[in-house]
């Protein structure tokens, strides 16, 4: 699904969620090659000019999530939880840690030891970043979320300094785990339910 379309869908769901018309949602999508720049982004972290990206078939979007620049593309699982945190903990820090925990649990199902790096957001394996997180909150309703590299073509990251960090990026495949996308999604959904359940009244939907 194109980034713009996913963004519009999220926005519509967020509005519905704010009006309590729908329960919490968990969208899972895959984007074509896209580079997005967060609100706090620095254009110097985009290493290629926009016309270079265009020629490489990479879309570019400014967006309203937290964090700096990142890449989305095939082989990546992008999760967008639309949750009303008032029904959870009213704690954005705990929310981000919980998303990390979901990913760490899922990675461990594939024999990978995901870790947090103090002072940074995301999930890392052996010092390389395997999942990025960027969130937007409006009246305690979340949007955007995380991107987990399953078999992402990491060469696209050459166009950016991911999230402004001069650190390595990796994927499950690069770490030796040739998991199928659907398998990983299933584990993420299971752990999402476990990590959030008690407080989360909604059901999990993924499409």
């Amino acid at each position: 699904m194109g980034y713009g379309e996913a963004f519009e869908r999220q926005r519509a769901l967020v509005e519905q969620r704010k009006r309590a018309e729908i329960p919490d949602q968990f969208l899972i999508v895959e984007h074509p090659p896209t580079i997005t720049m967060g609100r706090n982004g620095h254009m110097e972290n985009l290493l290629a000019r926009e016309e270079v990206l265009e020629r490489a078939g990479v879309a570019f979007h400014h967006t309203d999530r937290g964090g700096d620049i990142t890449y989305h593309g095939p082989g990546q699982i992008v999760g967008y939880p639309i949750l009303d945190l008032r029904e959870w903990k009213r704690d954005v820090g705990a929310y981000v840690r919980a998303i990390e925990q979901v990913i760490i649990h899922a990675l461990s199902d594939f024999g990978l030891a995901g870790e947090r790096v103090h002072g940074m957001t995301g999930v890392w394996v052996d010092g390389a970043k395997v999942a990025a997180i960027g969130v937007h909150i409006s009246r305690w309703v979340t949007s955007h979320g995380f991107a987990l590299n399953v078999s992402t073509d990491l060469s696209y990251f050459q166009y950016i300094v991911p999230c402004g960090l001069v650190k390595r990026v990796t994927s499950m495949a690069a770490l030796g785990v040739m998991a199928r996308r659907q398998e990983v999604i299933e584990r993420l959904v299971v752990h999402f339910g476990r990590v959030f359940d008690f407080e989360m009244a909604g059901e999990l939907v993924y499409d």
Partner: protein
Amino acid sequence: MTDVVMPQMGESIVEGTLTKWLKKAGDHVERDEPLFEISTDKVDTEIPSPAAGTLREVLVEEGKTVGINTVVARIDEAGGNGAGAAAPAAKPAAAPPPQPAQAQAPAPPAPAAEAAPPPAVQAPSPGPPPQAPAPAPDSERAEPAGPLSPLVRKMARENNIDLSQVKGTGAGGRITKQDLEAHVAQQQAPRAPSPAPPAQKPAAAPTPPAQAPPAYVPPAAPSSAKVRVEPMSTMRQKIAEHMVMSQRTSAHVTTIHRVDMTNVAKVRDRQKADFQTRYGLSLTYLPFVVRATVEALRTYPIVNASIEGTNILYYNEINIGIAVALENGLIVPVIRTADEKNVLGLQRAIVDLAARARSRQLKPDEVQGGTFSITNFGSYGSMMATPVINQPQVAILGVGAVTKEPVVIADAIAIRSMCYISLTFDHRLIDGALADQFTAKVKSVLESWSEEVL
């Protein structure tokens, strides 16, 4: 006047960066209309206005980071506060779409407020903003009875956690959900943070592609004109250099053991089809050999080491290089922390690394940092060989082809799946007895294979 404060975004958040004002001083805002945005820890949050009125003062500029509850702006409620009559139209916050004109609309109420400072003096104590970002007590804290919330009890039960082992960081030392999560994470990723530095060492040292059957050194070209000259590829030159360097560096000795692979063959035959359907991978002998080698390396750590001057470097990680033949050369991609992978994980890693090695998609760090290497010349039909050590490692294991052979067992002849494994070791560091103990360990793990692979 209503103070607008940096909201409390959760227990763990003590400050936030004001990233953007969505209104400017003098603008009219409706209650709950997004007023500014803050950023905390990769989360951007729109903060709604706590009141309707005129944004009178902006006290914190964009880009500044301030603690929670810091006053960032003041809103003139224009007759809100029950003062009644004063300013009419602006008050019914919900109803009329805000007057579009930016600085003009508030004009009428504005002077009123300025002219009447007393209300402004009354108002400044209004405590927390009424709506959304109220520092609502965490549900766990609010719960009065018992030191544990039901959530915590449930999580402990589900994850089989002994709560006496968990340190509480909540109010009064209570155990919160985060504490349990941290505890669980810690237990699940026990070896993860194992010190990288030792493993990094070999990376720093030159670890070019290496080993495999000794290179054939061509004699000087015959003077006949029937010669085609072709420059060596860079990879070929590197391999040549490395092979000779290795032979010059280490005192190569090879020991060969015969291994009865019948148990492994049975497991493999039984699980092959399921393995294929479930994981989309064919199950080969190699991950079993890697697994057995990991066991032996754990038992004999000196084989997972390097020599540096007169020191022995023992590696805390087991990173196993797997020799992959390429069209015109070979490369040794590394399975990192191979000791943390089971047969499935190893098979995945082998298939992936080999495929990407052949399509030249390996990244530089994937061919560095190996602490031991394995070469599977059996896949080309070789029975036994004496590989060259991949410097700066001190040994390399070679695996021959698995074939069915007549074998004498308890004075009877049986048909068993047999193969030869060879260990080339650096006699500077490893003596024959230890090399044979190591190889015998690999052999015994394979012969008495008991681990499930699915």
